[in-house]
């Protein structure tokens, strides 16, 4: 199944060819990117249809694993891989004339290629490389607005993620020293005997911190608020929405396959809780919408890590539910923040100026808070049920914190809803594209609510497949199709 490689290679290739192509024809440079993304998305969908959700692998260059690099595509990986080009298409930067536009398109393609690679790759070092590539692309995109504060925010982002990468590299080194392999499947084989020691845990901590930078994991998330406040909103949406989920996917694979120990889970939960509490509380005090959303995103991802720390397929299902919900809601909210960027108090009257946007915001807010029967509620319920199943003092503390923080979340979100609907002077309206993206998010949300039984079945399938380490190992090490 070497078609699996195309969605990674095509965008990368196009990215490098775009600069020369731009010299030839402006239209070509402008439309090549979206076209390639469409093709990639189509390819991935076709693969998904062909395999029917069954996992497949592809060994790159014909080298069989564990020596060669391997791609592993189960339903979850494919879903994430599809999400990357689709999100990028929806959030494609507004066309700028000339060099800058071409550069941005190239960076977007780079981001998509490496992102898809991250979703599919089954080799840790390969993941690391894609991760770095994606990071570099996101640096360029984040600073694309060209304002001084965007540069400063990006520098901060560069420093944090640079440091994160080297910690991850150190973790990889530790891992390699212990096992002599970086293939996830082989690591999974070796983990019980070689990694069930403090050194293994240290390696996990390093990897957690390294990949946690993108996943907005506490404590390496303090680049988030400034960057989201300064970067263009589509870029923020992309980073908060799909890119953070890719990093989460890596961590998910690592916890499920390699570091399936209580200590590792505990570490994940503590960091997740710290992010949840600090993020939501900071959002409570935020005074402008982009930063409010940034903080709230940190909080949501904290919840995601708490969910990720829960053992078993049920815990995995909870984590996936939270992740997919966030993937859907956060970009839509960031698109709404595109025009609602000022002080919160100045948004009074926005509800009258653009009723659709305000209605969508309210819908997303309700779902984020977790009001039944919206999907956000069911996601939260799954997490809470799994926490209650653990029933240790640690789990119950986490349970209490998650619940308490929800109250704070409801307060700041609905304080804002109240402001939106109160009479005021705010007259800015949204661009049709922002509204369309947000509307699409809302429509999917409502559709998921209406087809809840089907969605929940699909979710359970995804989770059980992702939790099935035996299948991963046999399939990957047993050679490709």
């Amino acid at each position, binding site marked *: 199944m070497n078609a699996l490689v195309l969605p990674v290679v095509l965008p990368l290739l196009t990215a490098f060819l775009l600069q020369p192509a731009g010299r030839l024809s402006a239209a070509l440079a402008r439309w090549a990117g979206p076209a390639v993304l469409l093709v990639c998305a189509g390819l991935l969908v076709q693969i998904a249809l062909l395999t029917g959700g069954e996992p497949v692998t592809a060994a790159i260059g014909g080298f069989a694993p564990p020596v060669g690099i391997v791609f592993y595509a189960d339903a979850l990986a494919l879903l994430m891989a599809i999400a990357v080009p689709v999100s990028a298409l929806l959030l494609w930067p507004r066309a700028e004339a000339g060099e800058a536009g071409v550069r941005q398109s190239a960076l977007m393609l780079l981001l998509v290629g490496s992102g898809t690679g991250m979703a599919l790759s089954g080799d840790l070092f390969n993941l690391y490389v894609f991760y770095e590539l994606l990071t570099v692309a996101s640096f360029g995109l984040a600073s694309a607005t060209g304002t001084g504060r965007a540069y400063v925010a990006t520098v901060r982002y560069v420093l944090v993620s640079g440091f994160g990468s080297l910690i991850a590299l150190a973790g990889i080194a530790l891992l390699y020293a212990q096992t002599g392999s970086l293939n996830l499947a082989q690591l999974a084989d070796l983990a019980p005997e070689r990694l069930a020691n403090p050194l293994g845990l*240290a390696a996990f901590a390093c990897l957690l911190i390294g990949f946690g930078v993108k996943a907005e994991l506490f*404590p390496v998330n*303090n680049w988030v608020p400034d960057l989201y406040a300064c970067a263009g909103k589509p870029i923020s949406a992309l980073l908060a929405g799909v890119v953070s989920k890719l990093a989460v996917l890596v961590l998910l694979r690592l916890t499920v396959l390699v570091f399936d120990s209580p200590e590792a889970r505990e570490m994940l939960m503590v960091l997740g809780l710290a992010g949840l509490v600090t993020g939501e*509380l900071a959002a409570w005090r935020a005074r402008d919408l982009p930063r409010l959303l940034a903080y709230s995103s940190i909080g949501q991802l904290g919840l995601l890590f708490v969910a990720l720390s829960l053992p078993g397929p049920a815990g995995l299902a909870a984590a996936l539910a939270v992740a997919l919900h966030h993937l859907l809601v956060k970009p839509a909210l960031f698109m709404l923040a595109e025009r609602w960027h000022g002080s919160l108090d100045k948004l009074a009257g926005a509800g009258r100026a653009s009723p659709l946007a305000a209605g969508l915001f309210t819908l997303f807010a309700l779902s984020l808070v977790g009001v*039944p029967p919206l999907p956000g509620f069911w996601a939260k319920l799954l997490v809470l049920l799994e926490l209650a*199943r653990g029933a240790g003092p640690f789990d119950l503390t986490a349970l209490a914190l998650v619940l308490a923080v*929800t*109250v704070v979340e409801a307060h700041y979100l609905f304080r804002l809803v109240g402001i939106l609907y*109160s009479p005021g002077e705010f007259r800015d309206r949204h661009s049709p594209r922002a509204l369309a993206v947000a509307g699409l998010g809302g429509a999917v949300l409502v559709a998921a609510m209406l087809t809840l039984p089907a969605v929940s079945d699909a979710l359970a399938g995804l989770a059980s497949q992702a939790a099935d380490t035996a299948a991963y190992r046999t399939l990957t090490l047993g050679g490709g199709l």
Partner: protein
Amino acid sequence: MTPLDTLYLASAATLAAMLVLGDWRRAGVLATLMYGVQLALLFTMQRTGSTSFDLSALGFELSWRFDALSWFFAVVTLGTAFFASWYGAGEWLRAYTGRRRLFQSALAANVFAMLLLLGSGDLLTLFVGWEATSWAGFLLMALAGGLARDAALRYLVYAMAGAMALLGALVVLFQAGGSFSYEAARATLAAMAPGPLWALIILFGLGFGAKLALLPLHLWQAAAYSETPAPGSVFLGGVVGRMGLFALALVLVGLIGIPHLQALAVPFTFLTAQDVVAWVAALTVVLPTYTALKQNDARYLLAWHGIGQGGYMLLGLIVGSALGSAGGLLHVINYAATQATLLMVVFGVRHRVGHTDLNRLGGLVARMPLSFLALLLGIISLAGLPPMSGFVSKWMVYSSLIQDGRPFLFLAAIVGTLGTILSVYKLIHNLFLGQLRAEHEQLNEAPLSMLIPMLATATLAFVTGVAPGLVLGWVADAQAAIGLPVIDYTLGGIASPRASLDMLWVVGVMFAGFGVGALLFYGAGGKTHRVHQLDNYAGGHFLDAGMRYHYSDNFYAGLMHLIGGWYRGSFHWLEGAIGSGLSLVAQGAGGWYRAINPAFYLLAASVALIAWVAL
């Protein structure tokens, strides 16, 4: 299709109709009719139970059904909605400047959500209904904007805190019993160790208590209810808080059971869980009632009383005897009629005058005599004096406390009633008695569309006072539904050797007494000469209309001189302290993200740690 399905369909249809037709001039009339239809459907339904649809989501079964307890609360809900909607259907709606469609839809959504809550057939459905009710309530409270929005937001904080406590309790219960069904929960709770059971009781108490506005979760209610547009306020004040009582009855009494509560001791004391709940209820009776005494806005005064009256209901219910629990439940329906009447009158005054400031009104009795009559009946009922229905339910609560041998709770209950008498007199005096302001001299009686419902609910409160047996049957069925001892009742009240009450005779004799009194007054002696309302002297001086001599502000100056110092605002202080504490932590959290490079400090520490582990 079961009768309950039909009812839900009718309720959903009302909501849909209001969403579509809410801006229509006659939308209020339509809504009233549709609530009437729902009420009629409810009455055609079997009281002891009906089932409705089931759903399945994520492997959880959600089911809806009615039992006698649901039916009882549904009657109160729909009845209040019917009268509140009628009240707002005519002239009030024409004068309403807000968004009509939104308002009508919010009211319909509230009713629908509450019916869903009442019909919940398992704990998960209960939570779904609970959240739906909370958010529908938030919508209704917030839609007026301004002050109402702030009050609603405050409500939201309390409601969400309550809902989250509830959710926590539910997931813990689910993991202990493996199911959300009532039967499983009952079995799990019966077998549970005291520690976890206490935790669950506290969580449930917080969850449901927030809506019932039990102390110390009561601060939100007065403002939130008062600032809502008139029919909404009537509806909220009359019935919404009672959903908390419904849920408490369902869980504390129905699932855990009074005997279990009695057996559950507070460690290191001689108190039991039942005592704790009863004392929370008793404090909820006393403290808010005396806060009401200090209010200067008629709506706030009534809303604060609403909090206190909720305490009576819980107090009666938790006593657990046939008499007490019947009294508590009966008070739900009596109080709904009473509070609806009172709020309708007060909002009627607001409709005519434009405000409800107790210091800027007075002497309206001659201008709005029928409103006065309705208010009079209402305050007699609220204060719990015969012959109104409020007396009957309170009498049952008092008697059960005597029989149970609980002197301090009894004292608290009666001190609450005395405070109510004081403050309702202030209400009627400052509104309707005393000096008529010159600017109100040409005031008209409230419009007919508002008068009829207020007189109707007042009549209901009177009739159920004279013949409580008319509704005690519902109460008895509701008692049976949650496993309480069932009250033995007659048409006139209670016949028992320990405490009997026959309101037919009591009221009959009272009215005979009034008749004789009237005969004595009007039939004998010289002819009275009626002076004009503004023809007044005091201390030998003629008081002209330009002089403000209405004794209204700080009405109980003497009492306040004595107890004024006891109003310390401790609950406000507590709320503020929690808010500030959280704010401080939040500032710290925000500081973490705003600081220059704190992540590196932490990371440097973690690298050192990893290095140490590795070596």
